[in-house]
């Protein structure tokens, strides 16, 4: 059964059609890639799925329910969480606190019990912190829980974003250019981590990436966008040899 379906999702901004009738299906446990040249509409697709934008037409179906028009915070509650292309951590908060924010949507105690410092709120806090530490371990960040997020080196900030998204316990994790700005070694590392997240925790992953080698090695299926239109879909080998994809990336042969 498909976990997420985009059914002819379209969004217009005035005269510009940023995403035009894009359709694809994600099955549970997929490692799915979303690629395309700059301005192809990849991040807009993410914004449609996570509720930042509401599609002008078409449907977005998650777990059998239409989710378009649902506010982003509710989408996170449904089990879709994302990272950002330009890192958006909570800079002044510590690494651990960043991840606890991700876990907060599953808290069960009232604000009053927190204001009065009652045991339920304290236990809940301890529980969320322990969970956050687990997530930091997965991303290999458990050595620096008290560092300020803004003080982390770039590669670690990228990983922290993933750890924070993992803390919401998503069924579907959207990664927006997770390898951008990393060196080859870090990329290799990240690839293994992403695969491990899928294999060990059964989280379906949709990843936007510019690095072809990264996507081709990591993803099992790929969708290619160009100028908001879907131009190809299939396993990496097929995408690699698709003339439309080659021309979108390299231009028409002269």
């Amino acid at each position, binding site marked *: 059964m498909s976990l997420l379906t985009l059914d002819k999702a379209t969004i217009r901004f005035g005269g510009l059609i940023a995403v035009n009738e894009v359709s694809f299906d994600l099955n549970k446990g997929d490692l799915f890639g979303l690629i395309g040249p700059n301005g192809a509409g990849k991040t807009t697709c993410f914004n449609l799925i*996570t509720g*930042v934008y509401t599609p002008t037409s078409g449907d977005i179906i998650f777990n059998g329910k239409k989710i378009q028009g649902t*506010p*982003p*915070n509710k989408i*996170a*509650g449904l089990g879709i*969480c*994302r990272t*950002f292309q330009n890192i*958006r*951590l*909570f*800079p*002044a*908060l*510590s690494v*651990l*606190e960043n991840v*606890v*924010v*991700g*876990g*907060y*949507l599953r*808290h069960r*105690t009232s*604000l009053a019990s*927190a*204001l*009065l*410092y009652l*045991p339920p*709120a*304290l236990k*809940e*806090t301890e529980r*969320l*912190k322990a969970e956050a530490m687990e997530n930091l371990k997965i991303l290999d960040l458990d050595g620096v829980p*008290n*560092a*300020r997020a803004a*003080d982390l080196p770039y590669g670690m900030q990228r990983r922290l974003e993933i750890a*924070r*998204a993992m*803390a*919401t316990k998503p069924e579907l994790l959207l990664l927006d250019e997770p390898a951008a700005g990393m060196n080859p070694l870090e990329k290799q590392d990240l690839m293994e981590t992403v695969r491990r997240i899928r294999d060990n925790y059964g989280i379906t992953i949709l990843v936007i990436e510019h690095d072809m080698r990264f996507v081709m090695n990591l993803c099992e299926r790929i969708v290619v966008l160009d100028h908001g239109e879907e131009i190809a879909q299939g396993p990496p080998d097929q995408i690699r040899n698709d003339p439309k994809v080659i021309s979108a990336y390299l231009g028409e042969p002269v």
Partner: protein
Amino acid sequence: MKFWGIRLVSILVAIGACFALQGLTGHWSDYAQRIVVLIGLYVTLAVSLNLINGITGQFSIGHAAFYQVGAYTAGYLTLTYFNSPRVQGMLHGLPANSRLTIWLLLMIIVGALAAALAGLLVGLPSLRLKGDYLAIVTLGFGEIIRIIVQNQQALGGSYGMNVTPKYESIAVIWLLAIVCIACCRNLLKTAHGLPFLSVREDEVAGQAMGVNVTRTKVTAFLIGSAFAGAAGALLAHFEGFITPATFGMDVSFIILTMVVLGGTGSITGSVIAAALLTYLPEYLRGFKGADGNALSLSGANVVAWMVGVALAVGLLRWVMQKHIESKGKRLGFYVGAIVAGAVGRIVGNLVFAHIAPLQDKQIPIDQVRMVIFAVVLIVIMLLRPQGIFAHHEFSWSLVRRLFKREEVPHTAVSV
């Protein structure tokens, strides 16, 4: 069990400290007592605004409006209903003093609720606004409240309103301050504080992580304004007289200054800045010469002071920007800068004393106290733009680290 033991003891200590303060200040003059009261009220106001401004990052500058709503609601109800037969009938059988205490507690709650309602009114339409725009709306809201009250004959208009019976209790005012501090501190100590901080840090990311940004902002406004309203209710009953001028824009700005000066987001900073900024103008008022008259400085003296302060501040800023490895050396440079400032003042004194028009001009300190007050603010902001406490909070481990000379880790809160 240990948990509840500590809780019980700390609550008892807090209550005990408030009554001890009341006992201690019991024989002080009305003027001195009033300063203690104002510090308590301003601590409440600054800490509650810090929740909205510093912790949730919503730039609100109309805090005096909530203070006013609380004061006028409670004052009006006391004036109109406390002596009515029905209320007296309900409180019948209690000694006169505890009748008033119970009524006051009720009025604190009513004042808080009324202010919270006002907070909701200003919070809801402000949700789409950020930064400067929100600031303008809250400022406008504050003025609207003040002007409405000024034009209500039932509330005494611009003449003000007498609130009888008065209830003068330093202990209750300080208890409110402690409750306010405790609530904010508890919030930051539990995971519930994180959505507030995440809204300040990055709204979009917070929402993507499932934080209900709308509800978080409204909650911050509700709690913050409720405490301001409670403080207002206490002010009305302590002073026995309130006018719209008590809640002008200048009050809003001084509360905002306390939050920024203390270190935006730091509860400890807000408390210290509130105490400092309430006390400082009164302290400057108290400068008296040996003959009991207000102390004056000659114009030459004032100019010399200006030279000295400017020199010291300039040098201190220069030292701060310099990279100095050793801590001892750094301290030496700081002391040197201050000494240079002092020397500048002395030399300036000698030089300017020869300029007759300067030397002959006498300037009484208590008349220029607000100028001195402003200079102090400017100097603090120049030397410590992040505020007195920056984003730190007081904690025993901080004190220990201070003596061990370790670096303090950079965390906003210690969840």
